[in-house]
């Protein structure tokens, strides 16, 4: 069964901390994505990557960065976490028309 695995289901971090959200896929997909989901706003694209060491800004990249050193792993980095980054974060991967989503990480910044 193909999978997108997000390392943490729930995280609580303090304001100002550097936070890493990890995503690993086992489908050899080229494309990987990070979205955040907030009530009433749907899912918004933060960053995406079409290849190793490649990254593109999505619609809301401010306050975030990403790293893709290996094809299967795409990390989202919050350089200095703030309370307005409290949200559900979803990772996805794709190849062709098929997208697969991870189970999500609910991040709370206090």
């Amino acid at each position, binding site marked *: 069964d193909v999978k997108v695995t997000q390392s943490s289901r729930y995280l609580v971090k303090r304001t100002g901390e550097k936070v890493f959200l990890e995503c690993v896929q086992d489908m050899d997909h080229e494309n990987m994505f990070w979205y955040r989901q907030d009530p009433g706003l*749907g899912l918004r*694209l933060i960053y*995406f990557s079409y290849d190793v060491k490649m990254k593109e800004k999505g619609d809301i990249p401010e306050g975030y960065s990403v790293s893709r050193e290996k094809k299967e792993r795409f990390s989202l980095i919050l350089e200095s976490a703030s309370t307005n980054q409290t949200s559900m974060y979803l990772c996805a991967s794709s190849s062709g028309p098929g997208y697969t*989503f991870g189970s999500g990480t609910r991040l709370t910044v206090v």
Partner: protein
Amino acid sequence: ELKVEQNPLFLSMQEGKNYTIYCNYSTTSDRLYWYRQDPGKSLESLFVLLSNGAVKQEGRLMASLDTKARLSTLHITAAVHDLSATYFCAVDERTSGSRLTFGEGTQLTVNP
């Protein structure tokens, strides 16, 4: 910039009734996705519509795509309580690589 709009955003309906959720989008695309999300869970893929006129059905749900009107519909037939969830449509604009842009979601509650 691609915009995707769903309506209604909230839908409360009785079991046994029919209803339609609409998804409008602002630029040309021939790839439209419907997802279901239960509270606290991730997205479950329902339908992938890949051409104008595409129609897909699974159980009580049927989705269609009209690329000329930039409109997709998700029709619910004889709703049951188990269909209560949030439904998202998403469009892959494919202008410079593939990426999904989501609608706001429709929160569906089916009452006994």
